[in-house]
């Protein structure tokens, strides 16, 4: 088998496919790589040699990272972002799965119209709802609080939709068998529906993380005090035209922001691809 494969000359299409794939990969990776190069170089060098292909000074890069952690609230922003993401993930999972459980497995009056309304909200762009949401949050006195950051993001029409599709596939017999086995409503959810939707839940968690970590607009609006800054906002400050920072320091801040999602991606690569394929849309 291997022998045959080695002996076979790749045809034109295979070669072409590889060329395209590699070109796309290079285009996607180069900015990241360039960022790494700029960070790990001596100050002053960045602007003079452009573009460069290899990092020149690891020590200088580490110095810059240390400087950012020491002189800015970057670490605090990390913590805020992390808590924000984790709370949002748990919130989205809990709310979406509970709602999906009811919508997909049971009948109740007003079900159709409720689903229609939720699905409608999926079509409305965030920009439209952001002002009313802001007003409501401020009314509740939640500006500059963690709940103000997290709670509006918990109601995820997308998550509901995705889990509903999944839970619809649970056979009615199985739910009825559990009912005859004496499981209450919540126990059916907890012992049957949840474990059976594990894959979808993992996917939803991943997509939610990627969306929350990269969310710039909402934290910017709701968390105006420095102690509520997320990583995104801090990077935004560095990027601002009047920040008086040199390119390499700005790049360091950007790199630090990109590290968690990158690590996350490397760990969950397969799940993410599966998830995107499964949901048919990007988070």
């Amino acid at each position, binding site marked *: 088998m291997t022998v045959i494969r080695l002996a076979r000359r790749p045809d034109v299409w295979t070669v072409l496919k590889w060329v395209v794939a590699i070109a796309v990969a290079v285009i996607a990776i180069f900015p990241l790589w360039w960022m790494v190069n700029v960070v790990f170089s001596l100050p002053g060098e960045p602007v003079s040699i452009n573009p460069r292909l290899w990092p020149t000074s690891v020590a200088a890069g580490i110095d810059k990272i240390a400087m950012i952690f020491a002189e800015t609230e970057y670490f605090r922003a990390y913590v805020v972002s992390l808590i924000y993401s984790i709370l949002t993930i748990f919130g989205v999972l809990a709310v979406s799965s509970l709602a999906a459980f009811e919508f997909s497995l049971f009948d109740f009056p007003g079900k159709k119209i409720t689903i229609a309304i939720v699905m409608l909200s999926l079509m409305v762009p965030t920009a439209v709802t952001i002002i009313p949401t802001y007003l409501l949050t401020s009314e509740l006195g939640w500006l500059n609080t963690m709940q103000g950051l997290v709670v509006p993001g918990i109601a995820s029409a997308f998550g509901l939709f995705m889990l509903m599709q999944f839970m619809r596939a649970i*056979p009615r*017999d*199985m739910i*009825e068998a559990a009912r*005859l*086995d*004496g499981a209450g409503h919540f126990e059916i959810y907890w*012992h049957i529906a949840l*474990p*059976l939707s594990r894959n979808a839940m993992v996917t939803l968690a991943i997509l939610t993380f990627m969306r929350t970590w990269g969310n710039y607009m909402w934290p910017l609006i709701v968390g105006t005090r420095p102690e509520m800054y997320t990583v995104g906002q801090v990077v935004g400050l560095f990027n601002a035209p009047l920040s008086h920072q040199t390119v390499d320091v700005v790049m360091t801040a950007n790199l630090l922001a990109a590290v968690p999602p990158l690590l996350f991606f490397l760990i969950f690569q397969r799940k993410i691809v599966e998830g995107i394929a499964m949901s048919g849309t990007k988070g």
Partner: protein
Amino acid sequence: MSFLEISSATKSYGRHKVLEDVNLTIERGEFVVFVGPSGCGKSTLLRMITGLETITSGTISIEGAVMNDVDPAKRGTAMVFQSYALYPHMTVFENISFGLRMARKPKEYIASQVAQGAGILQLEKLLERRPGQLSGGQKQRVAIGRAIVRDPRVFLFDEPLSNLDAELRVQMRAELMDLHRRLGTTMIYVTHDQVEAMTLADKMVVMNGGRVQQAGRPLTLYDDPDNRFVAGFVGSPKMNFLPARVVGSDMGRILLEGIGGSARLSLPFAGELAVGTSVEIGLRPEHVSLRPLLPTESSEALVGEGKVAYVEDLGAESHVHLTLTDGTAVCLRAARGEASPGTTVRFFASPERALLFDAGGLRLRNRSARTK
């Protein structure tokens, strides 16, 4: 008072009536089989007994207590589904013990119940497996195990063997019979399969169009059906129905004419039947013969003529299908080689074996010779 009583139970979905006026009594320890064509309401009735469907009107009671509003889990019924409905993410042990765990039974009790149930069903070696790693027959046993450990008052089975291949069905059927003998628990069983119904049932309940057509011992239903539907549904090959006309009645006998075209028959019948009434004669294939009856068998046999349409040779016997002059089809059991397709043959039947049905399909019983 019977163990389980269903009285004037009905079920409708909106305006669509699915079950109408169902009355049925079931004794403790009986093996009851519901049969009937697809869509006649067998599953619905079963689900009403176990509480998965509400009862629109009427009552269902078990051991004297009305069950209409009792929670499904508290009725003391256990159901085995056609799809098995095992929980795929749990091991066999977890599947079987799920109900006990939900009831917060002590660990030792659960362990001993599962061990006992697994012993009865020979599942000891499979307890750590998941349903995905089991064969169809094993899954079926797990599903039964899940029912057994709860010590139900009534077992309900909805076509439990229909997903199994023929050989396994026969084996599981024997196992079920054995299980019923050992546990002595009341069992209600839904099936499409004639043979399953005949062999398993203490009481067979034939349903059609949302009504119970007849309930009784399988052989009683076979020999003494209440109506044309039951007569035609029970038994394979099916009973033959020959249209006829009453032309006279005299001294406890009636004379029928125009049977399958031209044949005549005089048969004992004590009852009122006006001359000119259209009736149907029901004859089981084994009661129709290709050779003349001996005088001891019958004094005045029904003699007819038909063309052999085709012959099914089954080895031990043949099913000969005749077409009579008026187009009526008649099937009879014969020995191998007794008839060949295309020929015209004469057939004989004893009037004592003939059943009579009126135009509406109701059985016309010979009152003098009633069995009940």
